[in-house]
């Protein structure tokens, strides 16, 4: 709460102030050191450790969990742009994840066996289907998702915030259902229906083939993608577009009066958010070596939202912490904890079934007691508690 007005004046004038909150060189150095340290640990050190320690890591933090968490981080950062920066509640983010995943399925496998297209792929040339390089698919998936973000956003931006949430939710239901029923759309097999598309091609990196079990090298790719999303998030936030988003989040009407183009800014938020959803989707498809329609459930959208809310809406580092911790709990922490408790006490409690309670509880608890998240963004904290000072507006218009 220290003198926000002075800060604001400066923001509009000098670039220094804009970048002050996150010294560019500093975070890149820190991020790289942490990322490389983890890589060295999993690629080299963990095999040298005594059996007990290695076993501990295998149980509580296997390399595959680390990689999966990074995919969640990428998607959560995308959702953070929509929810945290622009203040638009998106309950259907799973749609972008699904579209990204199916881009990998379409362009990196022998699914379209009618044709035989090979561009920069590691797959053998005689294999039918469309085989593009992983990097090209990443780009294509992200662009297709961004286009879908605009398509979804365009008709709904006239709506009030709570309607918007429902419409995005509707898209989040429709798109997975299209993939699920997509075995025969007018005679065309779009998605292989509930069987899914598997396997997808290996990633080619410096002439190496990265299959589903080359976790260390894929970790490097995923962590760089996450770094890219962090970079994009931080850079845009400091720029004109980011400031427009924050203004819309804080007071839409005032922002439009000050000349912020509402439609353009909101569409951009959707597009950038969806872009990262596409990257996450492609990465996840290579992680699990396929796309499966029944994985894209509403729960994913809610888990992503819980990550953003837990960490602190609008704060990139908070969202990363939220995403890492929740995805760890979901994929490894809860089952491993349950196993330990059950074997110690001789009980038979199904701990993973408690995840609904956990995520619901996180959302409710955070909203009631710590709306700004664990690592709050200072600016958002002020807004979220602004109304607490007045007692007059009880209806909450």
């Amino acid at each position, binding site marked *: 709460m220290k003198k926000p007005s002075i800060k604001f004046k400066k923001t509009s004038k000098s670039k220094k102030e804009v970048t002050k909150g996150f010294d560019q060189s500093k975070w890149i150095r820190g991020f790289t050191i942490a990322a490389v340290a983890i890589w060295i640990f999993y690629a080299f050190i963990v095999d040298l450790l005594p059996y007990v320690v290695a076993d501990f890591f295998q149980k509580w933090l296997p390399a595959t969990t680390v990689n999966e968490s990074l995919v969640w981080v990428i998607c959560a950062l995308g959702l953070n742009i929509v929810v945290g920066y622009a*203040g638009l509640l998106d309950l259907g983010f799973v749609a972008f994840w699904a579209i990204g995943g199916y881009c990998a399925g379409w362009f990196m496998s022998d699914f379209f066996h009618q044709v035989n297209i090979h561009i920069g792929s590691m797959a053998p040339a005689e294999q039918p289907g469309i085989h593009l390089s992983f990097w090209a698919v990443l780009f294509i998936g992200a662009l297709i998702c961004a286009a879908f973000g605009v398509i979804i956003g365009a008709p709904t931006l006239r709506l009030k*915030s709570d309607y918007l949430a*429902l419409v995005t939710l509707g*898209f989040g239901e429709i798109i997975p259902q299209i993939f699920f*029923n997509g075995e025969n759309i007018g005679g065309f097999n779009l998605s292989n229906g509930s069987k899914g598309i598997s396997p997808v091609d290996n990633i080619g990196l410096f002439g190496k083939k990265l299959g589903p079990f080359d976790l260390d090298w894929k970790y490097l790719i995923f962590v760089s993608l996450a770094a890219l999303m962090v970079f994009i998030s931080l850079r845009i936030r400091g720029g004109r577009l980011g400031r427009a988003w924050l203004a819309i989040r804080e007071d839409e009407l005032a922002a439009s009066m000050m000349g912020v183009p509402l439609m353009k800014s909101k569409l951009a938020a959707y597009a950038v958010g969806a872009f990262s959803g596409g990257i996450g989707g492609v990465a996840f498809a290579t992680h699990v070596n396929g796309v499966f329609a029944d994985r894209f459930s509403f729960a994913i959208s809610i888990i992503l939202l819980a990550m953003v809310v837990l960490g602190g809406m609008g704060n990139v580092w908070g969202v990363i912490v939220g995403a890492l911790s929740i995805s760890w709990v979901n994929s490894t922490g809860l089952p491993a904890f349950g196993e330990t408790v059950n074997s110690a006490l001789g009980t038979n409690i199904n701990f993973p079934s408690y995840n609904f309670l956990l995520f619901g509880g996180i*959302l409710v608890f955070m909203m009631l007691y710590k709306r700004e998240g664990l690592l709050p963004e200072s600016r958002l904290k002020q807004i*979220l508690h602004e109304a607490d000072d007045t007692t007059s507006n009880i*209806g909450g218009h």
Partner: protein
Amino acid sequence: MGNTSARFSARLLIERASASIIIGLVFFWLAVNLVKSPSQFFQASVIGISNGVLYALIALGYTLVYGIIELINFAHGDLFMLGGLFAATFISVWFGQETPSTTGYGVFFLCLIAVMGFCATINVAIERFAYRRLRRAPKLAPLITAVGVSFIIQFIGIRWNGSGPRTWNSVLPAGEFVISGVHIPYTTIISFAVTIPLLVLMTFIVTKTRRGKAMRATAQDADAARLMGIDVNKTIAFTFALGGALAGAAGLLFQQTRGVTNYNLGYQLGLIAFTSAVLGGIGNLSGAVLGAILIGLVQGLNDGLPIGLGQQWSQTVVFTILILLMVFRPTGLLGKPMVEKV
């Protein structure tokens, strides 16, 4: 100035034209089906309308709550699911009634009262402990809370019912009668017999009683209502109780007429019911009923007609309606256009 108005009217024209085309296509689809197989058409309509009255009970809960505190109560559908579980436990486990009999009917009516009370209590408790504290917070906060509450209730559903669907025997008679080739099950008649008095009762409460007057006043302007001596908190709690009771009744009817309970039913039906409420114009009570019957009809026709997308696209059809509605008529069929208050 002239430029903007020209652009505006062009947009309006495109909107009108595409809306008319969509409506025309829907009527064409209906007409083709009617000509092709009239009995199937009416059969699908009967199923659709009997679904629709169920949706109406749930949709009213959304519309009541939205009307008074402008919150989309995400957890409302799950409350309906909980009502179904309570009804199944009450009738089949506690009272051991699994076949149609006089005792069975008695227990059914006893259960109707119990389940309405049960769901009303839970809804009031949710409002008291979760939403009330957030009434002055930015809109995002109560909405996210509602999503969280929905997940917590689904967790209770998983604990209570298991992670898959469970089937139950109904105490309602299973037969049907036939009017010129259209089969009408007795359960449909019973659904109507339960729903219509409830709707009449609710309309009476909202339009004729003091409490109803207080509700309408709070919906219009909570501050002014408070200055006039209305206990706003109590009124809002009463609204939640009313919505919860209707959801409970819907849960009982669903469980008894379909014989199925599942923890995620509330999520699916809740979204359909919400779409109905929006279709009718959210905040408008008769709109919610109209919207629910229309949605039920569309869904029934889509699932049952010879030329239709079929059941696996049911959700997609409903959400497409929701999205088209948002594009062309966000205020719904009976809603009034809203002006943003500054």
